[in-house]
């Protein structure tokens, strides 16, 4: 299987910072893989995702997305990716649909027309389909500033999926969403992934969302602590000197791993 994300010795040190936020990390993600990038607050997740999505320059190292270098071929990389940012990046004064239209036009999905009704039928159908999935069909014409935080998040999800990207970066995508919306969102993302082989790069603090991913990488203090499939991570945890045990969930494994001192890892 081809590698769609390749990160080699990536270092990022912010201007004026005493030490790097990301300290020479390396990992790769296969095409079509569902990949979770986990870690505590300030571990370097968002910095890494910002570099991978061409939003932040790296200090050193090599990053390639779909074979393209994120700095030399930034435009080609942007063609291939979609992203839901950690912080909302909507225009609060435009309507929900106008925000989607803006995005679709910038990604070359269709020509711009001044009203929703004048937009091409394929666009209107796609917006309606996505809005129904996340339950926003009744608020598309409302200004974003009048939507709740959860609704704004759903809108960002629609926006990130409208151009059907090859690699979808989700930086804590379900933050602020209710359980029903979370479930319907994951169903849709799963379906998109299965249908079109979309690679998903997820960061989240809801570890249960990463339970069924293909691979997990844990970053801590700017360094990759471990990369493995969730089942392997759960099995690999053992309490010394007791024999290996299998923890019930990825969250247990994650917490045990970050706590560190009582757990031995057998990777």
């Amino acid at each position: 299987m081809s590698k769609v994300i390749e990160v080699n010795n990536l270092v990022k040190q912010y201007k004026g910072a005493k030490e790097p936020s990301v300290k020479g990390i390396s990992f790769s993600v296969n095409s079509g893989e569902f990949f979770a990038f986990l870690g505590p607050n300030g571990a370097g997740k968002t910095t890494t995702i910002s570099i991978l999505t061409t939003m932040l320059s790296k200090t050193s190292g090599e990053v390639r997305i779909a074979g393209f270098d994120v700095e030399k071929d930034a435009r080609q990389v942007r063609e291939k990716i979609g992203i839901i940012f950690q912080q909302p990046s909507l225009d609060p004064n435009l309507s929900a649909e106008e925000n989607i239209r803006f995005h679709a036009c910038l990604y070359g999905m269709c020509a711009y027309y001044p009203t929703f009704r004048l937009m091409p039928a394929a666009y209107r159908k796609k917006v309606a389909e996505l809005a129904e999935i996340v339950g926003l069909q009744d608020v598309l014409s409302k200004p974003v500033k009048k939507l709740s935080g959860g609704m704004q998040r759903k809108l960002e999800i629609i926006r990130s999926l409208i151009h059907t990207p090859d690699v979808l970066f989700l930086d804590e995508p379900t933050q602020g969403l209710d359980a029903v919306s979370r479930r319907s969102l994951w169903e849709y993302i799963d379906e998109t992934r299965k249908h079109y082989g979309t690679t998903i790069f997820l960061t989240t603090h809801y570890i249960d969302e990463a339970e069924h991913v293909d691979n997990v990488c844990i970053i801590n203090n700017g360094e990759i602590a471990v990369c493995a499939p969730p089942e392997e991570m759960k099995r690999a945890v053992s309490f010394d000197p007791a024999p290996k045990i299998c923890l019930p969930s990825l969250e247990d494994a994650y917490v045990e791993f970050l706590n560190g001192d009582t757990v031995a890892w057998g990777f």
Partner: protein
Amino acid sequence: MGVLIMERKNSRVFRELNTILTVTARDVTLLFKSPGSLITSLAMPLMMMGMIGGNLMQNMTGGLNFDFGSFMLVGMLVAMLFMTVSMNMTSLVEDRETDFNQEMLVSPVSRYSIVVGKILGASFGALVGMVGTLIVGLMMGITLSAGKLLLILALSPLFCLSGGAMAMIIIGVIKSRRTANMAVMLFAMPQMFLSGAIIPINHSDGVLMVLSRFMPMTYCLDLARAVVNTGSPEYDSIVMFNPMINLAAIAILTIVCLIAGTYFFARSEKNR
């Protein structure tokens, strides 16, 4: 659950033109959604043209050998375009504050298309200000023929692009909207006087003359007055440079400012 895929348009030219149109349309939409901005665009000429210009016309233009009213109206039309475009461009800093810039900058389009789209969107508000200037002029008994007005309108995209490009230099390096508003105002107001919008600068020398030569508005104003006064006996008293020199100066200053401003803007987002 179905997953519909839309085909992307692959033409690079289409993509960039569509981006310019989309970014422009967003600013126009926002202007119509904010009646306060529209009212400000209309009210600003009342202060600039009506109060400052009116007082100058009544008290300080006795010895001039040309029609000061017409001189000032053309100057104010161009100055309003420049100032309003510059001030409207600060919405880019607001986009930075609301993180909407991320949405624009992560998209696979040229940064120049985004900036040109912003300038054209900002220009729409400036054209509203232009209408306000004409209304105030009319109230003061100063009019322009339809032909002359059309000539200025034909040149207005060039003036707006020039003003917007100049503002980008400031906006590219400032991260707070409050600071950006003040900086643009501090930069736009002196231009109005140094470039000769309401006060002739034919006899300026020393530092003031040097400063005026570095300001694109100087050449925009002179070009506008050149096309409006072509063939009139007042031409030599009003116009300073050959129109081709004006055009060349505007083109060079605009391109330099646009490239530098866009570079600063994109860099400030990425190089942290």
